[in-house]
Structures are given as structure tokens and as C-alpha cells.
């Protein structure tokens, strides 16, 4: 649907009609401080993470700061009464033990008691099973896109497709989460100081960087129930860095409950709003968390329990029909990204 849209705009900035997107200065005096819960457990080995934050005023980045909710007591309870406590490893980030794994068919609830003593719980979430990935395929994709400044750039890269056989006897909800690891080569010997004078560095010209694709890829099988499905569920952009040597893509296929799918679908809709006439109206993003003492309190977020199957593949420059200019970085490779490491993975 997303593509219809622009049509209505018919003309973008600089066109005959001069259609345009402008920043709108507005003053919202309203501020809701709500608990945000981003909770996830799966059938894979832990640790699984639950993140707790507090919402802030909408406006410029300096105005409202989304803060972490620290020192809460967080636990996961299953339908047989077993309770697993999570420990806060970083502010607002609570993790299960490594040994914790979800079981297909079990029902889980997330329980939170904040430092102030307010109790929250999730509605019971059943962990459904997911079918295996039959294959993961790739195709080169190139789409021209308009930057915020109005200039046109060509976005190209590799689109990823999941192939799987949807079970016929039920309605299934899917989600995919992708992560990647790539090798990057830089040129520390070409480093110049701030006056432009050569100041070669001795390290490091090679490193490995990991990343996670935070886009929401979800699917509901109501229109394709029981068929062999090929679904585009990822895209790795060729930015002149990622796909220059080798890129390891790890694809996870998750099961979702119906209400988790609904939450993610609403969230996805809100993330994709871009002002055209086909936009959904702003929706209140409800989740499955409730305040036990005050059920009317709005809590944002969802506690998801998923079955997960994993596949991986390498993407190489030869997969690209057209390559972007390789970016020359005259600096230490480790400074490119926080996740950069010089430790060559054993399987590389």
C-alpha cells in the first residue's frame, strides 16, 4: 500500500505544483510519562532481554529524554508456575540466565515491580511453533529514492527472501529478524590530522562489524494459507562498506501470536506514516502489559514469546549487479563502529 501514496502527492518538492514537506514548528504542552516494555523470549538459548524505559515529551531532541527504568524486579513465569528472575545488566536492560529457553506450547507472563512498588504484568502469551525455513534466497535490488534535501540517490543492495511451507490447518503469524557481520578494510596509514598533515596510524586496517536490522518484517498467512511462500523479509544496502569483502547474514524466522502480530502491525504502520492521504490515522499503540492496580493506565509495549528457526548465508560483492564506489576510510577501522573488533571470527 505504501507505494500508492506518493501518487496522490503527484509532485514532489520542485515540481510544477511545488509539493513539499516542511518541518512544522509546533508546541505540544502535553507530556505523558508511560512505561515502555520491549520484552522478548524465544526457544533459543538465552540470555533474552527485557528493556524498560519511560516515554518523554514529543518535540526536539533536547526537550524530552527517554529514560531507562532502573532497579525494577523483572521475572518470567510459565504456566507450570516456574519463575525465572532477570538481572539488570545495564541500566533498564534486564536479562534471563543463558540457560533459559522457551518451550513451544507453554504460556508465559512477564511480571515487573518497579522501584516505586508498582506492579505490572503481561497478559499470558502462548509460545507457538514456527515452520522451518526451506531456503533463503537473494536478489539484487535497486530503487531510486529521494533524500530529505530533495536530491535523488540510487539505493541498491541485496533483497532477502524467506522460502517456507505455511501449515494449512491454522492461521500463522510470522516475523523475521536479521543480523549481519561484515569484514571492513580501511586505510589507517592515510590518516591526516586536523590540519590536514599526514599522521599515519599503525592500526588497524581490518575489522569485523556486526549490525542488527531493526525494521519490522511481519507476515500473516490469511491470503496465502497453506502455500509455499516466498516473502521478502530483508534488505542489505550496498553502502560501499558492508558488501566489499564478505557479509554474513543471519536470518531468524519467528512465530508470533495474533495479538503480537497486531501490536507489531500497528507499530509498523505508525513507523511508516509519511503524510500521504493513504496514511492510517494515528493509532494508540496498545500492547499486552497492564498495571495490576490501575488497569486504565496505558502501558506501551509487548512481551513476545517466539519459536525461532535460524539460517545464515554469505553475501559477496559478486551478488551485486552494480557496485557502489568503495568508501575509502583513512582511519583506524575500530573507530568506524562501536561493535568493531579485530578478532577474526573462527568461521571466517
Amino acid at each position, binding site marked *: 500500500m505504501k507505494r500508492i501514496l506518493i501518487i*496522490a502527492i*503527484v509532485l*514532489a518538492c520542485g515540481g510544477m*505544483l511545488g509539493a513539499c*514537506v516542511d518541518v*512544522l514548528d509546533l508546541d505540544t504542552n502535553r507530556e505523558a510519562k508511560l512505561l515502555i516494555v520491549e520484552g522478548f523470549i524465544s526457544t533459543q538459548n538465552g540470555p533474552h532481554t527485557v528493556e524498560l524505559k519511560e516515554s518523554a515529551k514529543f518535540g526536539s*531532541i533536547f526537550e524530552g529524554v527517554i529514560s531507562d527504568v532502573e532497579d525494577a524486579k523483572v521475572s518470567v513465569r510459565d504456566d507450570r508456575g516456574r519463575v525465572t528472575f532477570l538481572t539488570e545488566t545495564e541500566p533498564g536492560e534486564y536479562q534471563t540466565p543463558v540457560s533459559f529457553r522457551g518451550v513451544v506450547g507453554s504460556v508465559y507472563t512477564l511480571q515487573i515491580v518497579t522501584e516505586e512498588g508498582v506492579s505490572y504484568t503481561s497478559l499470558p502469551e502462548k509460545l507457538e511453533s514456527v515452520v522451518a525455513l526451506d531456503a533463503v534466497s537473494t536478489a539484487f535490488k535497486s530503487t531510486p529514492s529521494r533524500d530529505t534535501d530533495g536530491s535523488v540517490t540510487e539505493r541498491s543492495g541485496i533483497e532477502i527472501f524467506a522460502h517456507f511451507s505455511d501449515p494449512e490447518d491454522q492461521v500463522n503469524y510470522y516475523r523475521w529478524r536479521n543480523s549481519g557481520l561484515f569484514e571492513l578494510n580501511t586505510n589507517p596509514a592515510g590518516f591526516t590530522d586536523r590540519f590536514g598533515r599526514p599522521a599515519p596510524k599503525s592500526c588497524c586496517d581490518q575489522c569485523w562489524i556486526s549490525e542488527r536490522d531493526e525494521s519490522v518484517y511481519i507476515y500473516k498467512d490469511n*491470503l496465502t494459507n497453506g502455500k509455499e511462500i516466498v516473502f521478502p523479509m530483508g534488505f542489505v544496502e550496498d553502502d560501499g562498506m558492508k558488501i566489499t569483502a564478505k557479509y554474513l547474514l543471519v536470518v531468524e524466522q519467528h512465530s508470533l501470536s495474533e495479538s503480537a502480530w497486531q501490536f507489531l502491525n500497528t507499530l509498523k504502520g505508525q513507523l511508516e506514516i509519511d503524510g500521504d492521504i493513504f496514511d492510517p490515522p494515528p493509532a494508540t499503540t496498545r500492547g499486552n502489559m497492564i498495571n495490576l492496580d490501575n488497569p486504565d493506565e496505558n502501558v506501551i509495549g509487548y512481551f513476545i514469546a517466539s519459536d525461532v528457526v535460524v539460517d545464515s548465508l554469505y553475501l559477496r560483492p559478486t551478488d551485486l549487479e552494480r557496485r557502489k564506489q568503495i568508501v575509502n576510510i583513512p582511519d583506524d577501522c575500530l573507530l568506524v563502529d562501536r561493535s568493531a573488533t579485530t578478532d577474526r571470527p573462527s568461521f571466517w
Partner: protein
Amino acid sequence: MKRLVNILVLSFCLQLTGWAQAPTIIGKDNTRQGPFRINGKVSDFDSRESLLGVNIFVEELSTGVVTDLDGTYLLVLDKGKYTLRVSFIGFENKRIPIEVKGNGKLPLRLKEDLLQLQEVVVFGTNPEENVKSADLGKSTLSIKSIEALPPLAGEVDILKSLTLLPGVTTVGEVSSGFHVRGGGADQNLILLGGATLYNPSHLFGFLSSFNADLISDVTLYKGGIPARYGGRGSSILDVRYKTGDLNAWHGKASVGMVASKLTLEGPIVQNKLSIIFGGRLSYSDWLLRTTSDPDIKNSSAQFYDLNAVINYHLNSKNKISYSFYQSSDDFKFSSDTTFAWTNRSHALRWDHTFTDQFVFSASLVNSQYNFSILNDTGINDFQLGSDINDTGLTLDFNYNFTETNSINFGGQSKLMEINPGKLDPTTSSSSVLATDVEDELGNESAAYIQHTFDLGKRLTVSYGVRYNLFRYLGANTVNRYEPLLPRTEENIVEQVTFEDGEVIKQFDGFAPRASLRFSLGENSSIKMGYNKMFQYIHLISNTSTIAPTDVWKLSDEFLDPEIVTQYSVGLFKNLNDNSIETSIEAYYKDIENIVEYKDGADLILNSNIETELLTGKGRAYGVELFFKKKQGRLTGWLSYTYSRSERQVVGPYPEETINNGEWYRSNFDKPHDFTAVTQYNISDRVSFSTIFSYSTGRPVTYPSAKFEYFGQDVAYYDERNVNRAPDYHRLDASLTFSFNARRKLWQGDWVFSVINLYSRRNAFSVFFDDIPGAPPQAYQLSILGAPFPSLSYSVKF
């Protein structure tokens, strides 16, 4: 050319003889002194088209009458000599001396005034009608007055012109939906030649799909809606065709920025059978190429519309007409996805005159609308389509006891068939599963009667009632839900199957209508109106305006009919010998069973759509001020409306309640709305027009907080439509050069217009986004961000 000369010579002679002539004698000598009835039809001298709204003024008595929809008039006069003054906009005035001796007929023919183009332009009705008739909340625009307004891309746009009237608003500059007195866009019944139009737009609402060259006039009923109309809650828009010339062939061609038009009309059988037909074809791709958005650059847009109207004058008592309409749009987006929509309608009508007092018409209409998306990207190719087909019969009777006492009655029945959505894979490798949401069938019938009469000199009363019966018919499968739980897919307990034609659900009701006029003097009156409307078809749309992807839905077990009750009152006063018209109207509207949606509703191809729908109530009220100058070099109008439109949805569960159950503003609640339309005739041939509009910005939901999820900042919304987009204002101007069009080809009408003269960037929408490199913030999208000039040329031959 020769014909023109003939006409000029002929009319010159007629006028000469007219002056020399003794009074026309009407009726046989009669011993009675009267009153006698004099009636007749007023028609166009050239085309024999009947003319509606012609003013016939009896100078001696200082009273007048106006021709009705069929061009007929009725005068009641005592025995004696009189002088009639016949006048109509765009036609030459005529003075006719008569002598009345008894009942009789006086047909009149008026010549189009070629040299006096657009002198008196504003609406094509009787100058006194607004004070003298019981109608309120009714506006008629003649096509001439619409053509005098600045056009967008050279196209005369009927729907956009309507939004200049008090009480009519639109949410955006490029949208085909309009809102009448706080009602939804689907609460307007749009009739073209009697047939319903479901999506009157080209290019996703950039233009409306009416070809102005074939339209005679446009009437909008906002309130006091006559009993013969029904089926939608807020307004009736009746667009009427011209009738073709019965004497000679001629035509009109025009060239605009995005489309060209050609219209031809003439007799097939002289004085008996005429045809008028026209077409419009687009070439708008160049406009898309001017954009910087690569997806749009690679798009192509085509549209066309076709109209044909045949009129057959069987004899003086019988007339048969047939009209055909088709409009079609094809928008190929980025060369692999095509959006296409088509409207098609047929209307057959028979007019019969039993006696001078008793006339009858029967019409059989069929309307079709379909929409499709064709995905040709190579991955999961599919075709998605939906369509509507409705066929209806109307029988309408009019009996005039006297000039001031008439009765209108009749019946209507309509069968509506909707295919809400059908999805098919188009290649064997596509993993799309063929899906077909069950068709819906409904039958809407009505019987109506309305009586209009004068009670003394000061009071006119019109009252009526419309009885509606709607049946939702099988074949269909209906879900039954767990009674005490929210209506969701998990709570379906059984499915009941109904046979073909079986009645699944039935609604009926009486819709009373009434209006009353009380004269305060010669030039002013007070009017009051009441009307109740039932609506059994609803637009299911999760977007802010009418979009082609929207699906229509009939009332069923889960969706009660919308019921709109309106009370209105108005004060009408004409000044300066009826050349200035002023009015104040106020209304209050109560709406039951408004359709709303759950947050994040999934509406496309949903077989259990009732799980996503909510119903609520609405209220709307407002005051409309109107000032119109109808004569002189400077004509135009000023209108100001203060209005509110609000909704409330309270369900038994939080997910079935909107805005915590509090009243909230509808998407089109715009309290202040001001329009100024002026036309100045610089000379006989050159005129200058402007439109200025101002309105409060439309309601927007601003986020009350931001939160972070999956590493992105997201806006959080709770209360709906609390804030507003920036105010809307815009100035358009046009300059028209009219040359006597029937001489040489290069002598036509040139219209140069500039839309959005001072380059206002009006917000089409306001949205909130977290774009990398900027803080999460509010953005506005404006569609017309720069002055948009255009030039069009038209020639009559």
C-alpha cells in the same frame, strides 16, 4: 456560419415584428373575469432545450414566476392586458405584450446572448427565488457561473466549485471528497443525470470527473431535502445534463494543460431527436516528469471520460432521454503497479404529461464502479479488485392543483451489489492465494410524498415523508459472536449460511421532511426546515479522504443504518431590486451510527470486517452567512461559516472506545471558513476573477509522548484530533478573454489562471517522523507549494 447569419436576420425580423405586433391574445373570449391559467414552456431558441429558472415578470402586477425543472411555468391572471418581461442569464431579455381572455398556452423561446457573455453570471436561478420559495439549504450553480471561476490546470471543476459555498468544506487541496455541514464524505449522494457516482475523481482527486461542457447545472441540497431524495445522510448533489440542439449541429473544443475536450451536439431527426456527446482525454504525464521523485517520474497517468445524452421528443406529451457516462483512470506507478478505476452509468428516463397539471416521469438507472490494483513487480504478482453495481427504478408524479399548491409523490427501488474485494495471483510462481470476500446484496426501496402550498400571502409550507425499507440479502455467510466478549475473530462461535435472495436483516423507517417560509415583506423571509435521512451504504476507509482503495459496505447485522436528523433556520433578504442577496442560516445535525474503526484496523480483503468496525454518534452545528452581488461589472459573493462537527464512540471494551469515550473533533471539523469570490468585467470580452479562501486548519492528533522501540523513536497518541494543522488560505486568479466564438477558429475563449497566487504552502497533512539526521518532529506535507499557472483555450463551432 451561414446558420448564424440566418439566426441573426431572423431574430432581427422577429424583434421588428414584435414591436409592431399587437398583444398576443391568450384564450377564447370568456364571460368569466378570471382567474385564468396561462402556462407554457420556455426553451432555447437554437437548441430547443428547456430552460430552468427563467424569470417571467408581469410588469403591471410587479409579480413574477420562474420556470421549473422542465422549463414550464404557470401564471394565474385575471382578464386584461399585461406586459411580460422574460429574462434569463446569458440570454437576451424579451418583453411580450399579452391580452388574457381565458385559459391558454404561451410557449416562449429565448435566444442565447452571444455578445453579452457572462455579464450577469452568478447562479442561474430566479433573482427572487431565495426569498420566495420554501427551499432552504439549497444552492444551484449554473455551469456558466462555474466556468467563470479560476480553473486548475485549465479544467473547469464542478466539485471544487462547490467547496466555495457556505457549509461545504474539503480536507485538502487535492481530494475529491467534500463535507457538507459536518457530514462525512460518503454522506453525499452524487447524481449525474440521475445515476449515482461512487468516485467522481481523476488522478486521485486532482480533478473531478465531470465534463463541464455537457453539464447544464448543479444543485446541492444541504438541508430541507425534498422527500424524493434519500439514501445518504448529509446532502444530495444533483448534476444535470444539457440537452442536445434539436435544430443544428455545433460543438465545442477545448485544450487545457492536462487534458483536451470535444463536445458535439445536434439533431438526428430535426426537432425530434437530438444527441449531445463529449469526451475528455488526458496527457498529464509531462506534469509527472517535472517532479524530482524518481518513482513518480517513472509513472504514467491516463484518464478519460465520455458522456452521451440522447433526447427524443416523441410528441408534446412524451419525451424519452437516455444518458451514458464512463470515466476511467489508469495510474501506472513506477511502471510495475497499476491502479485503475472506472465509473459507468446508464440512465433511461421517460417524461409524460397527463394534463397541464399532472406530469409523470419514470427512470431506470444503472451505475457501476470498479477499482483494481495490478502488481507486476515480478514478485508475488497479483490483481486486487472490487466493484459495485446498482440498478434502480424511480417513478415520480407531480400534481399541481394551482400555481401555489402542488404535490409530489412516487416510489423508488434499488438493488445494490458490492464485491468488497477479490485477490488473484497473476503468475504461477506467485505465492498469493486467490481470495474472494463474499459479495453483498441489498435492496433499498422507498415511497415518498410531499405537499407544498401557500397559506395566505405570507406563508409557504412544504411537508412530506419518505418511507425507507432496506433489506440485506443473501447469499452470504454471517458470523455469530460470543455475546459477552469483544467482537474479534477468536470469538466467532458459528457461521450461518443464507440462501440467495434470503433476507438476512431488514431495516425500515419514516423520514419526515418539512420546510416553511414566512415572508417578512417583499424582499425578506424567514425559513425553517427539518429533515431526517437514512443511509444504508457506508464508505469503509481508514484514510483521511476518499481514496480509490476504499471499499463500500452495506448495512448488515452488525452495522446499523446511519440516521441523520437536521434542524435548520434561515433569514433571507434581498436588497437593491434583488441584485443583492443576503442570508443567514443556522443548523443543528444529529447523526446516529457513524462508522469508525479500531486502532490499526485491517480493512482490505477482510471477510470479518465487523471485527474492525465501531459505531458512534455525531453532532454538527453551524451558522452560515452569505452575501451575493448578482449584477453590474463587479459580481461575486462572500460567505462565512462557523461550524463544528464532533463524534463520540463508546463501546463496552477499551478497544471499542475511542478517545476514552469523550466527544472528539471529526477529521473535517473546521470552525471558521471564509470565501470571497469576485468577478470583474474589464470590458465585454475580458473579465478577471479571483477566489480567496480561508479556513481553520483541520484537526490533527499530536503525539502526547515519544517512546523508543526497536531503536527508533515513535510518537505516542492518546486523545484524538485535539490539535490543528496550520490555518488554510489561498488566492486564485484568472483572466478570461472571450471572443465571439462562432466566427473564426482562433477566436475562442482564452483563460489564463494562476492557482495559489501568493505561494502559500497549505498543510495537506501533518505527520510525525523520526528521520535519521533530525530529531523526531512534526512535518507538514503541502501539495500545492508554488503558484500554479495554466492556460486553456476553447472554441465553439
